[in-house]
C-alpha cells in the first residue's frame, strides 16, 4: 500500500521574538501513514502534534526535514486539494452562517454552486446541523462549532483528513457520532490522521498509532502489536523479605498482596532474573500472565519513563 503521508527528519524550532529562546517543538520526526488507515497521533500537551499538522498544511515551515502527502511534497499548493483539516479550536468566521461557511470553503476549492448545494445539504445532515444552518456561527455552542468544522472539512471530498482533536468539547453522544463518521470515512477509503486525548476512542478505532513526547517519536506501530507488548504479571509467594525486596527493585512495577508479591515487567532478561530470584529463594511461582495493556497504560508508561530520565 502506498503512503498517504510521509515525513522524513521533520524538525521544528520556534525562535522567540527576541531570539533569546528556542523551543524545539519537533525533533527529527520520520513516519509513514498508509493509505486507508486511521492513524492515531498521540502525545501529551505540547508534544508537537499540532506543529506536525501545521507543517503538513504549509502554515509553518520545518526547520529541517521534508514531508509528502499523497506523493506530492508539501510546498506544492495543489496537495491541499485532497486534504481536509479540522482544527483543534473553532477558528471559523463567526459572522457567517453554517451554510455560508461551508459554501465559502467549497468555493476556495473552486467548486461550483450546483455541486455545492447538494453537498452542503448532505454534510450538514451528516453532522446534525441541518436545523441550525441559517444561524450565525457567533451564536453557536462549542460542540456546534466543532460539528460545522467537520462539515466544512469534508466539502472537497478529501482523500486525507487531518483531525486535530475533533471530539474536544463534544458531549458523549456527539463524540460517538463523530467516531462513527470517522469509521464511515475510513470505509470509503480515506486516510485519517487523528490527534486526540480520548485514548479509549483512539484505541477503539485506530489501525496504527504513534506516540510523540516532547517532539520525539517514542513509539509507532500497529495497535495490536503495541498493546500486546511483552508485559507479564508475575505472582510469587513464600519468599524471604530480602527476595521480595530484590524483586521490587528489579520490576518496573510491583505490589504486595496477602503475603504475595505481584510484579509487572516487560524486559525479557529482567523477567528471567525475577524468576531466578524466586527460585533461588525457594519461593513458589503462583502465576505468570502475559498482559494486554490498554492504550492508556502504554501512553502513561511511555510519558512517565521519559519524565523520569
Amino acid at each position, binding site marked *: 500500500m502506498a503512503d498517504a503521508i510521509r515525513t522524513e527528519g521533520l524538525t521544528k524550532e520556534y525562535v522567540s521574538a527576541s531570539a533569546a529562546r528556542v523551543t524545539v517543538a519537533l525533533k527529527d520526526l520520520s513516519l509513514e501513514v498508509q493509505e486507508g488507515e486511521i492513524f492515531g497521533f498521540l502525545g501529551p500537551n505540547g508534544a508537537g502534534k499540532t506543529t506536525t499538522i501545521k507543517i503538513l*498544511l*504549509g*502554515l509553518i515551515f520545518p526547520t529541517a526535514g521534508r514531508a509528502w502527502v499523497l506523493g506530492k511534497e508539501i510546498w506544492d499548493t495543489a496537495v*491541499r486539494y485532497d486534504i481536509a*483539516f479540522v482544527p483543534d479550536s473553532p477558528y*471559523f468566521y463567526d*459572522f457567517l452562517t453554517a451554510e455560508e461557511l461551508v459554501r465559502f470553503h467549497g*468555493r476556495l*476549492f473552486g467548486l461550483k454552486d450546483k455541486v455545492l448545494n447538494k453537498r452542503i445539504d448532505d454534510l450538514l445532515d451528516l453532522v446534525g446541523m441541518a436545523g441550525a444552518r441559517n444561524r450565525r456561527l457567533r451564536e453557536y455552542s462549542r460542540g456546534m462549532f466543532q460539528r460545522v468544522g467537520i462539515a*466544512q472539512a469534508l466539502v472537497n471530498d478529501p482523500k486525507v483528513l487531518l483531525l486535530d482533536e475533533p471530539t474536544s468539547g463534544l458531549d458523549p453522544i456527539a463524540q460517538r457520532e463523530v467516531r462513527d463518521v470517522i469509521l464511515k470515512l475510513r470505509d470509503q477509503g480515506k486516510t485519517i490522521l487523528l490527534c486526540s486525548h480520548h485514548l479509549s476512542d483512539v484505541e477503539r478505532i485506530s489501525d496504527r498509532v504513534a506516540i510523540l513526547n516532547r517532539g520525539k517519536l517514542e513509539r509507532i506501530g500497529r495497535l495490536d502489536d503495541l498493546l500486546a507488548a511483552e508485559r507479564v504479571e508475575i505472582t510469587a509467594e513464600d519468599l524471604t523479605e530480602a527476595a521480595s525486596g530484590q524483586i521490587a527493585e528489579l520490576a518496573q512495577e510491583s505490589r504486595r498482596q496477602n503475603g504475595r508479591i505481584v510484579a509487572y515487567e516487560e524486559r525479557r532478561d529482567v523477567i528471567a532474573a525475577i524468576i531466578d530470584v524466586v527460585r533461588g529463594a525457594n519461593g513458589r511461582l503462583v502465576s505468570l500472565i502475559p498482559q494486554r495493556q490498554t492504550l492508556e497504560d502504554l501512553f502513561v508508561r511511555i510519558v512517565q519513563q521519559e519524565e523520569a530520565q
Partner: protein
Amino acid sequence: MRITALAVNTFREEVRRKVFLFLLLFAGVMIATSWIFSFFTGTEEMKIIKDMGLTSIWLAGTIIAMVMGIRMIPGEIDKRTIYTILSKPISRTEYLLGKFFGGALTLAANTAIMAVVFMTVVAVKSHQVEPPQPVDFRLLGQVLLAYLQFCLLLSMTLMFSTFLTPIMNGAISLFVLIVGNLSDTLLDVIKLSKNMVVEAGLRVLYYLVPNWQNFSVQDALVRGDEKVALAYVAKIALYGILYTVILLIIAAQSFRNQEV
C-alpha cells in the same frame, strides 16, 4: 475564482462589521454643513460645500483604508481563522490579493455612497443658490483619485502588516501619509539643504513615499479652475495603480515566508 470568493467574503465581513456606519455619520455631517453655511453668498457657499465634502470623503476613506489594511491579516492570524483558509489550496499570494480586493471593494462601496450623497447635495445647492450654478461633474474625477489613493493606502498598510506589528504599522503609515502630503515642501527643503547626508536621506524619502499631493485636484476644482485636465487625472490614476501593484508584489513576497 478563488480570489473572488475570498474578496467577496472579506467584503461581507467588513459590511457585517458595520464600518459602513461611518458613512451614515459622514452623510449626516455633509448634509448638515450645507445648511449651516447658508448665510454666505452663493459662490462662497458652494465652495465650502465642495471643500468640506471632498475633504470629508478623503478623511473617511483614509481612515477606513488604514484601519482595514492594518488589521486585516494580523486580525486573522490572532483569531486563527487564517488556518482554515490557508489549509485550502490557496497560495499566500491568492490570499493576499483576495484580502486586498475585498478591501478595495469595501472602499469602493463606501466611496460610492459618499459620492452619491455629496453630489446630491452639490446638485440641490447649485440650483438653490443665487445665482444658480452649473453642477460640476469634474468633482467625480477628484473622488476617483481619492479612491485610488485609498487603495494605495490599503496596499501599503497590508504590505507593512506582513512584517510589522499593528502599532508600528499605524505609526509608519501615518508618517508616510504626512510626509507624502508635504512632498512639495520636502523638495524645497532638499534644495536648501547644505548637508550631503541629510540631502541624500531626504531624497530617498521623497522618492520612496508616494506623493499624495498629486492626487489632489481639489483646490483647483473648488476655485473653479478650468485647467484641470482629464489627461492629468488619467496620469495620476496610472501612477496610483502602478504604486499599488508594486506594493502588492512586495507584500506577496514578504507574506510567502511568514508563518501563521
